[in-house]
């Protein structure tokens, strides 16, 4: 059987927020539960692999978004096709915005791939701090750092609802469509929140006709125990400090 293929789009340009951590969490947990993985770094000018099981993209500055934009749009059809056929996506921040219907920043505008049913608008207001969200894949903790507002299409389902942190509770967070998640929670999210990582892996492996065995039972997989323990302790600290607003220097 072929290895589970994780494609990271533009890791240098769109990976400024430790987004490699999301890829690492997926590949580490998959490997430790016995699934071979292959990580493909897609750079500008390269060809996308023929198939992908999971696509990851992260955050980056506007200049980096512009730099990769042409290459991304040249691959838009493939990416859209992948999403429509159930490939899992985990898209954070600016990368997620490029997979939406487009980004507006003042006068500037960048078109999007159209995987996610929203548009992004850059605002003058920066959101910085811990964030806790009740998501469709369980509670999620992370660190938010952005100046974006996502305008969801009427039919769009949000990834979750904010329960605490720097954004008022009750506000919708992110977008999920099929197996594709777009979020503004950084941290990076997947190492800190194994439930989400496992949910993504389960969907991706199920689509290949394989079973992911990590989440079964209270104890979880022996090989995941240290990861789960550290993640759970890290989340507990973040929960305690979520209301603490650090000084802006």
């Amino acid at each position, binding site marked *: 059987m072929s290895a589970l293929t994780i494609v990271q789009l533009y890791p240098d340009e769109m990976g400024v927020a430790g987004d490699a951590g999301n890829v690492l969490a997926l590949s580490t947990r998959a490997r430790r539960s016995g699934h071979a993985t292959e990580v493909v770094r897609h750079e500008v000018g390269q060809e996308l692999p023929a198939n992908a099981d999971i696509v990851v993209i992260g955050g980056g*500055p506007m200049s980096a978004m512009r730099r990769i934009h042409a290459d991304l749009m040249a691959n838009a059809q493939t990416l859209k096709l992948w999403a429509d056929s159930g490939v899992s996506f985990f898209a954070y921040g600016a990368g997620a915005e490029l997979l939406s219907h487009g980004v507006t920043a003042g006068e500037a505008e960048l078109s999007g791939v159209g995987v996610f049913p929203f548009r992004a608008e850059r605002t003058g207001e920066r959101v910085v701090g811990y964030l806790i969200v009740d998501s469709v894949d369980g509670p999620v903790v992370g660190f938010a750092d952005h100046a974006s507002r996502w305008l969801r299409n009427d039919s769009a389902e949000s990834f979750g609802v904010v329960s605490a942190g720097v954004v008022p509770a009750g506000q919708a967070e992110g977008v999920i469509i099929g197996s594709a998640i777009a979020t503004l929670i950084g941290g990076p999210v997947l190492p800190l929140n194994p439930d989400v990582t496992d949910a993504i892996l389960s969907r991706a492996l199920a689509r290949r006709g394989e079973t992911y065995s990590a989440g079964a039972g209270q104890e979880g997989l022996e090989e995941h125990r240290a990861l789960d323990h550290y993640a759970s302790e890290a989340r507990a600290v973040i929960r305690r400090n979520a209301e603490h607003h650090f000084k802006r220097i």
Partner: protein
Amino acid sequence: MGFSYVLPILIGKTLRVLARLRGGGSAFPGYAALRLAPRFLHEVASQFEHGVVFVLGSNGKSTTTHMLSEVLRAHGVRVFTNPSGANLPQGIASSLLAEVSLTGRLKADIAVLEVDEAYALEFTKVLRPSTVLMLNTQVDQLYRFYETERVADMMLDTSARATEHIVTNREDPYLSKIARRIVGDQPDVTYFGASAEVIASSPHGLFNATDYRDGESSSEEHVALGELRGLEGASATVAVRDSEIEIVLPAKGLHYAIDAAAALATAAVVLGEGFVDSAAQRAFERMKPAYGRGELLQFGDEQVEFVMFKNAASLQLNLDALPEPPEQVLLAIDEGTPDISWIYDIDFSGLDHVDVITGAKAWQIALRLEHEGIPIGRVEPDLRRAIDIMRSLPKPSRGIKTWVVNYEQMMLARKLIGFGELENQR
């Protein structure tokens, strides 16, 4: 200067004494003096024969300010400099207040000031630098700066306000392009850098940020006045103009070595013909590490080597500088570093294990290392208890324990082991 400054200076000095009595330093006296006499800094600085140097950069400001000051002193130049904890305008004004006479006289020939990037441009309005040294643009505190290119612009715009010289990093994609922004021949631009071989011999090079907004995302090519040509442990060879100077660095690492090249190039620009190789060499020989940057402190009958980091670049470059995985390691990070997403961009393979991870973010670091399969002894978020664990470990063969810490944890750790003086009180 004159008698018109007596009152503001007296008030500032009095406030300063009061702040000290209360314990700790304070930026308020400087703030007060600047409010009462906005031209106070300008007037004081106009006495300096060699003007005012601003040192800017994402990393290495304190180290380079220290190096440049010492090299100038070795040439007999009287230097006023600010302690690295005080790099905001009010803090700089406060530290000047401590030194000036009541009529505003200050016995110095030059001021070498490290200045926070975010305040530097505004600061040029009250204190115009004659020389601006720009060290590097590295991804740093995005929660504060948003985008790295904004930081680059803060530095580039500040440097363009220099009245005489800019000294900049040839190897920095953003900063190497400053000449494009200078109209006419003032300020002049001088470069420092490192040879391609030296950069290539370090696992992750210089870790400078890529310039995504420019067609040319890497750095521009220039001839460097000060060039790092060799590096072996703490021994470095830096060419200044046509001669190579062998120096001993205050701490190991490519980042310290290129800071030394920056300091030497700047000294050569400021002193012109007065720059003497042997004096520069002497300065490095007797230089001590800057606060917490490779500093060795006594810990019972052992020693602790403090390795401080504040962002991805400084942590990676410090890890890359380790000649071998340290025998006993404590790793400490707390909420003083609000966003640590970047720990996933760090290659931790310079460590073959960590004995204790501590600080409020200890569990996040443990999680990161576990993904890499790096063995972890203990996770103890409380620093005091973590230090007790380090104390109870057998003495390492070299007698040195390595503590890799962020700024806040370093301050706390120093205090806990009996070196509690503040950075600006040394």
